[in-house]
């Protein structure tokens, strides 16, 4: 493990709950690691599998996805669909031997600022221990 390794983490969160969690966190003056890059998507269900794969191939060490809790989705079932997509990506990465544990899926509600910050921190520490993503530095992709 390299000592000065700072992982790059892409955090996809949905417009309604995940982003709301980050707003609550800011209201409470919580902070999360600076190497976590937040991306707002309209619904985690609208996130394509390609976005996750592209992040992993083009430079992210890990990808986090946060949507609403089951039953809370603004569009009724977006989070359940997202769960299937993440399951597909994780299975694909597992079969291809590309470390599926670099993709995390955890529900964060609008009011759960602490949970949002903890998730970002925990994942960042986890990836730091895991090390660099092997395919992000391969030029022949």
């Amino acid at each position, binding site marked *: 493990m390299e000592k000065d390794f700072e992982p790059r983490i892409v955090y996809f969160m949905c417009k309604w709950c995940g982003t709301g969690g980050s707003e609550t966190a800011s209201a409470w003056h919580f902070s999360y690691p600076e190497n976590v890059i937040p991306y707002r998507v309209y619904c985690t269900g609208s996130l394509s599998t390609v976005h996750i*794969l592209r992040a992993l191939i*083009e430079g992210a060490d890990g990808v986090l996805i946060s949507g609403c809790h089951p039953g809370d989705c603004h569009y009724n079932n977006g989070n359940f669909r997202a769960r299937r997509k993440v399951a597909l990506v994780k299975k694909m990465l597992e079969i291809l*031997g590309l470390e599926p544990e670099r993709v995390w899926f955890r529900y964060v509600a609008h009011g759960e600022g602490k949970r949002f910050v903890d998730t970002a921190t925990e994942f960042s520490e986890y990836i730091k221990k895991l090390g660099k993503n092997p395919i992000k530095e391969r030029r*022949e992709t």
Partner: protein
Amino acid sequence: MKVNKLIIDFLLSLMEKKKIDAFLLPLKVPSGDYYTYVLTDEKELIEKGKPVPPVMPAGGARALQSLTRLGSLKRKTGIIMHPCQIKAVIELYKMKQVDLENLYLFSFDCPGVFPAEKYIKNPKETEKKFEEGNQNEIRELCKICDKFDMVYVDVYIGIKKENIYLTPKTEKGEEILKDFKLENQPEPEEIKKRRSEAKEKFIEDFEKEIKGPDALLSLFSKCINCHNCMRVCPVCYCRQCFFDSEAFDLSSENYLLRAKNKKALRFPADTLLFHLGRMSHMIFSCVNCGNCEDACPMDIPIGRIFTFMAEKIQKEFDYVPGRDPQERLPLVTYEEEELKWVEKPYTRILRR
């Protein structure tokens, strides 16, 4: 092959009885080095057709997408295709790309086909080998295909020892076959068992070739990003493909940054993303037809890669493409209580 003649006679008798008005079936091109699907109601042309061709004509299922794009067919049309293409038709139906009204699907016990490359180079000799029933030189994918009879068709044509056995599988099929004398078809067990064993062995062996970043990247290292595999794929139906979209019109800064991150950037870029992305979009519907492998100019074993992945992933989600048109595609449906292993539990509450 005698079987071809028998099937053609059967199709013509359907036309005579006014049960079907036109057929879409494989026909040799005039220059004699390939087969294509033709839509025709001319008796002479149907007589020349080859329902069981020695190569797989490209674009079978996609032909139906074009045919029914602006609404259902007005005349009864019979379609005779390889089982894998019929499965792709059913998948396209689920994606609302094909209208099954007035369409009659026919399929048969597939003996496998030869690689298109081999056929184009030497049509006469390959045709002779095919008619002799040569099973050693057929495509690698056909050697491991064991699901050729698990398909939703109206009429299934069993082939055994130069004889055909008709089986209706739907109400539509029963209606067509009302006046025909039906015999029970002997099970194609022997060939199925042999192919199942070959498939198990293939899945075991191929894992070494694909697992891990090094192996995976060396598989795709020859790719020239021509997107042929996508264009001939029967289930890749999108009119605007994401990989042809503006998402890949990138600024020079973007390329330079990526080149800096990776120390160097290979061109054409985004080949691995193309293959993995396409895989994640259509792997559930992959019918292992091998059109992609036939079309690849760089001899990448793309059909085998997708077959390997499809076998594993479809098993994981308990989905079989082409089994039932009422089944829903895994990515457009969900259950509330499932896939709990994906959710990362929140157990470590950090102190701050």
